[in-house]
């Protein structure tokens, strides 16, 4: 790890203000990606803005037909929230499937979305549920937020403060884990709201999270895993690596979509 200047603001507003003044700054949420990257000397921000004391960025609130989760809310808190388990059980379920207990006790939803790791779980939920990413500056629809591998619509100094998820009629998430890292090789989030079905896939796409329109169409016709029998996803545009090639990933998308649909509630 290279030396850096450490900041510890106690509110989202102050954090943004520090970021506005500091050169080459990075926000530190749970640190589950940033800290190992810094330790390996692959990242060397001059200023590190730790959001741990920003209590206004934490918590889960259910209002009307939507759920709002503070960006600094840890995976374990999302997974264990009784209210969320009622409102969007698939989202709580997803949070409980991230990493291992150590990661879930540190990692946060905002950190995950800001990092936009192509194998992370939350991007699938955000895209399938049609979430709104709220920052210190604006509101960004999930559709516009994910722009590529580790790339988002966030600008320099912009920090996610909370995320709002519309409550679906039914949703489910299933993932196929990388045998080594246990990140998603393929993660599929299916959500049904009214007559609309949205299906988002993480882990597989060479451009990051994407919507599987072929599967959406099949599930819109009838929201049942049987609708996906024989639905073959194209391998084009999917990742190939030492753990899974594009063809296998394409196959797994349909399998995971079926299982997510069966799980959906």
């Amino acid at each position, binding site marked *: 790890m290279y030396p850096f200047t450490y900041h510890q603001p106690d509110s989202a507003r102050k954090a943004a203000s520090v970021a506005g003044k500091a050169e080459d700054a990075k926000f530190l949420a749970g640190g589950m990606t940033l800290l190992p990257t810094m330790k390996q000397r692959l990242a060397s921000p001059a200023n590190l803005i730790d959001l741990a004391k920003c209590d206004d960025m934490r918590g889960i609130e259910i209002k009307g037909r939507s759920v709002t989760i503070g960006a600094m809310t840890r995976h374990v808190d999302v997974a264990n929230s009784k209210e969320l388990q009622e409102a969007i059980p698939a989202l709580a379920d997803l949070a409980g499937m991230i990493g291992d207990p150590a990661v879930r006790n540190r990692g946060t939803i905002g950190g995950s979305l800001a990092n936009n790791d192509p194998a992370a779980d939350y991007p699938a939920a955000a895209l399938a549920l049609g979430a709104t990413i709220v920052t210190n500056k604006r509101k960004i629809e999930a559709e516009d937020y994910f722009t590529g591998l580790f790339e988002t619509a966030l600008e320099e100094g912009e920090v996610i403060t909370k995320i709002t998820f519309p409550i679906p009629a039914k949703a489910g998430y299933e993932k196929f884990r990388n*045998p*080594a890292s246990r990140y998603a090789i393929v993660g599929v989030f299916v959500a049904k709201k009214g007559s609309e079905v949205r299906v988002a896939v993480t882990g597989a796409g060479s451009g990051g999270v994407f919507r599987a329109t072929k599967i959406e169409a099949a599930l819109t016709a009838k929201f049942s895993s049987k609708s996906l029998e024989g639905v073959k996803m194209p391998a084009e545009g999917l990742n190939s690596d030492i753990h899974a090639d594009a063809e296998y990933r394409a196959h797994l998308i349909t399998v995971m979509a079926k299982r997510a649909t069966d799980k959906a509630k």
Partner: protein
Amino acid sequence: MSETGIGASVRRKEDFRFITGNGHYTDDINRPGQAHAVFVRSPHAHATIKKIDVVAALKMPGVLAIYTGDDLAADKIGGLICGWMIHSKDGSPMKAGAHPALAQGKVRYVGDHVAVVIADTYAQAREAAEKVVVDYGVLPAVVDMEAAVKKGAPVVHDVASDNTVYNWHLGDKAATEAAFAKAKHVTKLDIVNNRLVPNAMEPRAAVGDYDFGSDCFTLYTTSQNPHVARLVLSAFIGIAPEHKLRVIAPDVGGGFGSKIFIYAEETICVWAAKKVGRPVKWTADRTEAFLSDAHGRDHITHAEMALDDKGKILGLRVNTKANLGAYLSTFSSSVPTYLYAPLLSGQYNIPAIYCEVDGIYTTTAPVDAYRGAGRPEATFVIERLMEVAARETGVDPAQFRRKNFVTSFPHQTPVIMCYDAGNYNAALEKALEMADYKNVGKRKRESAKKGLLRGVGISAYIEACGIAPSAAVGSLGAGVGLWESAEVRVNPIGTVEVLTGSHSHGQGHETTFAQLVSSRLGISIDNVSIVHGDTDKVQMGMGTYGSRSGAVGMSAIVKALDKIEAKAKKVAAYVLEASDKDIEFKDGKFSVKGTDKSIDFPSVALQAYIAHKFSGQELEPGLKESAFWDPTNFTFPAGVHICELEVDPQTGVTRIDRWTAVDDFGEVINPMIVEGQVHGGIAQGIGQAMHEGAIYNKDGQLLTASYMDYTMPRADDVPSYNVGMTQTRCPSNPLGIKGCGEAGAIAAPPAVINALTDAVGHENVAMPATPIAVWRAAQKAITRQAAE
């Protein structure tokens, strides 16, 4: 059987300090004034070194020194050695390229040591190491063994222009060809035995220290055999003569073979300690461990088995290419030769065997012994052939094995080994019973109802352990003898210290060795200490590997205890005023035959030291004896493991449903510890079969250099094991021990793969059988079955 004697499942004495964080590992050792070393490693698989510029790095804060290969050469520090000479078929000696501890002119794998930076702190050394500028002339890498031996391939070492270290063979070629000529059926198989990274929990580490007053070096290091390390560092590398070099291997957190070898890093730390006048410490980080620990396995094999019309094996021929990496590590040459081919007969009567092995240089990390070392590779060959041959000839795999088992002993195989004792049928029948083999069909149908494919696989393994008779290994090219030493020191109050040349790095010697003493002397194990891992305390020893500590290490203790008992009887005779021929020793008590006169062991110990009763007599005061034990044969642990698993054909995910292990380890000192060794071994074997695999890309970059990409078996990947035993005593050592440390890792891979192939319609599945590999095989089977 006493509560702490032989055969009792005594809780491990050493665990208290380990689980309370009171262990003393090498990285826990900090010497006054200690400096830290960081190695500059090659980012290229193959390159010439044109220039090393250390000017900027030397100016960095805290830097004490930066050394390169030139500094080692100037000090006449020798290169790392390979201690086992292998001769090719044509009689020529193996082609061993020089292996300098810091590269001289050329690097040969990613992670190869180029320079060392020594600074006040680790952080400073690391900062400065980044400032060392090395001008490389990048050469093409050669990773693939087939490519390495092709004409025009990049040459790793000039001494081996075809990248071939040796073309070795074993067995009778003509007899084998004749056997195949009259075969009714020939089973052929192509096998890849995947490359593994050992991944001991504790990474390698070293602290070198030098005392100017006494001109003595001390090296603390993560070693399985500190005496061998001292011998090599002294006699070959030339750090210091043995009496001026102390090597201490304190608590060591797992080795699995990877800590047998003498590496560059500890060599540099101890040498540099004198150069900089400060103790020098180095601890590998995990990436360094992946890159620079000697890897294991990595064979490509074509094997054929000839059968007669009754399903009896007539012959076996095997052709193997073994990747030895970029340099010959300490014992690397022996692993794919004498630790491999002599085991190809398995548990079977095979009249003719011929095996050829080519050792190949590639621009990858050196490959050497890893748990099982050659024997897992051999077992995989023979047990995969047994499965495939049984399927091809329509015979139940269990029945096929029964038909070919060795049933009388001693049994001389055509490949060196003489099996001394065993009962292979007994282990098979017991395992089949425990595994409920007869109802597998029913369970397969139940799985099918759930859309899952169930398979069952048998592995009947044999290994040669208790390594090894010195004369035998000497005749095969070993540079050392493989005896073991022991010294038993009885203190005046009757407590005992046992000094052993064996080394415990997870095996539990502090408990099992104490159990032996407890049994023999009738004292509590709490009154016994086991001392190991320090060349200043233990005079000489050969260390721990090859499942040798029970069979060889404890045999040396038995011999020393025999001497203790003999002398103690003489002391007791003086005290009890009787002839020593009339003294009996039983349950910790010396008594005069036919009388009620007796004295207990601690009292005899005291009498031995006060010497009041025999002053001026021939008998010397004191009670301390030492012994060396050189075994007369290898030992032959054997057993049967049965794996039963379910495959999800939709994803290729495999779940091991049940595991039955029946092992014959001969006499067992501590069944709990033995069972633990079996568990750990199977987990590593499952790791090889289903999860682990070191992958280099074509440029020689290790793609699996962290746990993000290298899959270790985890608790939820392994089943609850059903472990049983059969027992035939080993006739070649006094305790009847065969050894147990490697059995699981040897037995498990073919059991898994045989089960997997059974699940997927006998499609071949290569290791590691990751979900994608299993899915592809399952798809193939489904397509084929649909077509049939």
